[in-house]
């Protein structure tokens, strides 16, 4: 129990009347947040003007201080531009068969040409954009679905909760790749199937986020500030949107980033096995599988798609790490 004098002192912070003895007067046991507020108040009294920063502003400032995350963001944007804007300016189309085949990297064909005569530069651009677009769709769908279902299960619990947990148990028993092999085997025979592949991947990946959000909601539900909201008569929608989601947003965003990396990896594996994106469309995994047979004699056919694949995933992982640090409310990095 604090001394009575201490209580009055803390209370008097909010009433501006008497000058408050600050500094040493603040007990050490008070959390860092309160101490910061007190310091800010002292600064305000001294005539300095400190602006309040929102959750987003603080996260942004922390993210831009993370060197690897910035490198990742820069690389990812560069690759994205290369693969989407690049084809508009490049002289060859990815499906076009040129007169030169099996030529190494040169000025006319920076990434060389394959045994049929496809320009690899155009093929890698197209494959990269297919892979990224598939992964972004997967991450988008699985994040929205996972967050909604996880929030429902965590907040309302009961049968929705046990249904979710049993379903995720079911998906956990078999390696994701194996389920995908089975499902993709049917879908892969249809033309222009990247969207179907994306749907299947999303159908498996949402469960991870759902479990995560459920966990966060379950623990938040019991906290005092939520109880206080209930006491003042706040609606469920207000509690979820104003209090629960902002507390869970860190896990959601970081998980969405990791899902992008995972989706690119798994799609590449499926395409490598011939069950993913089908020709004439190309993806990075497909290009690598085509290069495998001649990898010893035509290594450039392998190096470029494999290099891009690794670079994209590295970049996305760095962004994910930066976001994790930036969105963690426990972080006290000066920003």
């Amino acid at each position, binding site marked *: 129990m604090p001394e009575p004098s201490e209580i009055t002192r803390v209370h008097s912070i909010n009433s501006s009347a008497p000058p408050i003895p600050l500094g040493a007067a603040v007990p050490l046991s008070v959390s860092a947040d309160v101490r910061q507020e007190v310091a800010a108040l002292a600064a305000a009294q001294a005539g300095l003007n400190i602006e309040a920063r929102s959750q987003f502003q603080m996260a942004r400032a922390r993210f831009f201080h993370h060197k690897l995350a910035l490198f990742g963001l820069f690389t990812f944007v560069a690759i994205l531009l290369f693969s989407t804007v690049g084809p508009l300016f490049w002289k060859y189309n990815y499906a076009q068969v040129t007169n030169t085949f099996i030529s190494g990297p040169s000025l006319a064909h920076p990434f060389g040409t394959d045994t049929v005569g496809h320009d690899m530069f155009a093929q890698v651009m197209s494959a990269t954009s297919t892979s990224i677009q598939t992964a972004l769709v997967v991450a988008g769908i699985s994040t929205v679905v996972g967050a909604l279902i996880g929030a429902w299960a965590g907040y309302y619990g009961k049968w929705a909760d046990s249904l979710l947990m049993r379903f995720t148990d*079911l998906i956990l028993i*078999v*390696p*994701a790749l194996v389920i995908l092999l*089975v499902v993709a085997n049917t879908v892969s025979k249809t033309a222009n199937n990247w969207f179907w592949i994306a749907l299947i991947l999303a159908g498996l990946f949402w469960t991870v986020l759902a479990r995560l959000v459920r966990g966060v909601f379950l623990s938040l539900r019991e906290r005092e500030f939520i109880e206080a909201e209930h006491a003042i008569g706040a609606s469920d929608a207000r509690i979820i949107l104003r209090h629960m989601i902002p507390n869970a947003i860190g896990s959601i965003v970081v998980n969405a980033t990791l899902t992008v990396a995972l989706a690119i990896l798994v799609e590449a594996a499926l395409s490598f096995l011939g069950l993913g994106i089908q020709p004439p469309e190309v993806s990075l995994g497909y290009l690598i599988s085509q290069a495998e047979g001649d990898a010893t004699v035509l*290594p450039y056919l392998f190096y470029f798609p494999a290099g891009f694949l690794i670079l994209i995933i590295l970049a996305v*992982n760095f962004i994910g790490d930066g976001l994790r640090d930036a969105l963690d409310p426990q972080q006290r990095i000066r920003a």
Partner: protein
Amino acid sequence: MGAYILRRLGAGLLVLIVGTFFLYLLVSLSGNPLANLMANPHISPATIRAARIELHLNEPLLQRYWTWVTGMVQGNFGISTQGGPVGPQVWPRMWVTLQMVIPAVILSVILGIGLGVISAVRQYSITDHISTGLAYIFFATPVFVIAILLKDFLAVKVDNAVGHTVLYTVGQNNPGTTGAWSVFVDALAHDVLPVLTLVLITYASWSRYQRASMLDVLNADYIRLARAKGLSRRRVLYVHALRNALIPVTTVIALDFAAILGGAVITEIVYGWEGMGRFLFTGLTGPVSPDVNVVMAALLIVAILVVLFNILADVLYGLLDPRIRYA
């Protein structure tokens, strides 16, 4: 603890039953195994009708599932569309896959935990930075890219330089080998590249977990106390810190088992091994696919292993950390 394990096994069995039901429907509906036969004009309708009856394709789907389940319970895996029973093919293939997976898991555990501990004890040293950098790279590299790099770039160059085959790139053994010792050496030589592939994609995340958990422990109050009362550095690190830091990693390792089997499927295909991965893959995409009984045999064995490893993870956690009690 006994009651807890029994309850978990019961729940696992239930999940297996429901799971195999859906998987059976999924695999059966994914295609017609007789499609190639029917497309061939030289094959008479009578032959196709006979094949349909032999494979029970004339029966309703639920009845086929029931036949499979009742056979399964008696240890009968059914027949393959390629001819012959599935059962005798399963165990040799399982053995081939384990020949790759078991050494890979053991080496990954040693490498992952070792590097993780060194990284944590010498945080921000050169060793830590290199280990972290490598972990990031292996984490971002798909298993088939590592497999192709090792096979087509490393092994071919090494073999050419030496003049004869040192690193085998195809198959799990030389079929003609005789004598117990020669067979063992031969299997070991074929194991090198596939095991290395699996280790590289597996150890990276384990070393990160081990590093984080070791750092957590090293910052704990009881470690400061152990140091303050004058215990040697070795004793503090390896008796007080390491033992506690191993607890969370044990669970991660057991839970990652499913992912390793997934990686093994691709590794087997790149290196031309005749294990469970290729068995499943040909069952799904071969000329007479889907080979439902083959696919289901592979899926069931993998699913049982994953369920058991999940339970093992939780049990180990309880045994290693006395603060955790299962009600």
